């Protein structure tokens, strides 16, 4: 477990968030799907840091695949050397994963430690982190719905365009409903430090599709605690990955 937690620069602003929490974004890393040697892999990291997913695999709670009608297809993770591949029983249109990432607390601006409020009762920040990933890996025949288990999910509000630079509207869902105040980065792999854009009242942001290749959009939403004795907030980090094909050769 790395400890490179990002210090929040927006502690004061976060207090004004709709959930009424002192919302601190503690961890910018995420999970996403990408192709490795033609196989579908589950990645943990940020930017060019393609980190050790194998050791984190026990934390993965769900890996799911869906057909063109978004009906489930049996899927499972498979360790292949240093990477984690996803095998499904049939060719999927969409794949998804959920990885709870523990409870982290700190006092003031100190280091985060993997402790709950019970273990660190004087913590000023105590956050439970959950990572989500959805990837569109086949041609969509109908709009992408809210998927089971994806508490926070990014969905495209229109068809995926053919070329980079084309604006695409995304809606960030929280428990299946559009949510305002989610912080979105257009490309967490190639531009992870870009200024985050917050979703508006309708839960949407519109961004130009950045890459004629893999696109990994990240949304972070800090929601209320479901276990206030253990942590003060839940930080949901969701990704949506899709690929624009390059020109025919």
């Amino acid at each position, binding site marked *: 477990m790395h400890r490179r937690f990002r210090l929040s620069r927006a502690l004061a602003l976060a207090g004004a968030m709709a959930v009424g929490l002192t919302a601190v974004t503690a961890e910018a890393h995420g999970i996403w799907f990408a192709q490795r040697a033609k196989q579908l892999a589950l990645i943990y990291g940020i930017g060019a840091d393609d980190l050790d997913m194998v050791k984190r695999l026990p934390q993965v709670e769900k890996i799911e695949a869906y*057909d063109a009608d978004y009906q489930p297809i049996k899927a499972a993770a498979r360790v292949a050397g240093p990477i984690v591949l996803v*095998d499904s029983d049939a060719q999927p249109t969409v794949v998804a994963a959920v990885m709870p990432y523990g409870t982290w607390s700190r006092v003031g601006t100190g280091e985060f430690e993997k402790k709950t409020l019970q273990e660190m009762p004087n913590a000023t920040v105590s956050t439970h982190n959950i990572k989500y990933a959805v990837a569109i890996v*086949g*041609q969509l025949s109908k709009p992408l719905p809210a998927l089971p288990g994806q508490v926070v999910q990014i969905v495209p509000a229109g068809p995926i365009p053919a070329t980079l630079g084309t604006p695409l509207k995304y809606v960030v869902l929280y428990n299946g409903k559009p949510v305002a105040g989610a912080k979105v980065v257009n490309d967490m792999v190639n531009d992870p430090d870009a200024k985050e854009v917050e979703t508006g009242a309708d839960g949407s942001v519109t961004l130009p599709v950045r890459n004629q290749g893999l696109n990994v959009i990240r949304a972070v939403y800090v929601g209320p605690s479901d276990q206030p004795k253990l942590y003060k907030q839940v930080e949901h980090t969701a990704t949506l990955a899709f690929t624009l094909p390059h020109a025919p*050769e």
Partner: protein
Amino acid sequence: MKKLATALCCLAALGLSAPTLAHGFTKPQHGGVVMMNGETLFELVAQPAGVSLYMIDEDDPVNAAGMTAKLSVTAGGKRSDVAMVAMKGNQFFAKGLKLPKGANVGVQVTNKATGARYGTTFIIK
């Protein structure tokens, strides 16, 4: 066309060559429809007796006998998974299968030895 020929002549005169294409076949070889996934070509051919799938990995036809292939046909709110039979060379065949217009067809080919999966999706027009 004239411009392209002139450009190629100029490149040749400068001792340069046109860029080499990274991949091999990208066009149908059997009159079907093609989807590329990276350097892998999938060609789906609807025939009166059924549906054929041909797979070429870069320039190399795969050995169908070393693979299993499955088509997942989603149409009318229902998905049917159809196992294909390996034929000669790089051909797989699903006898009697019809692909309705508008169907979303997932193709999955699995290497029997390594478990590696290759796939794409077609939308039938």
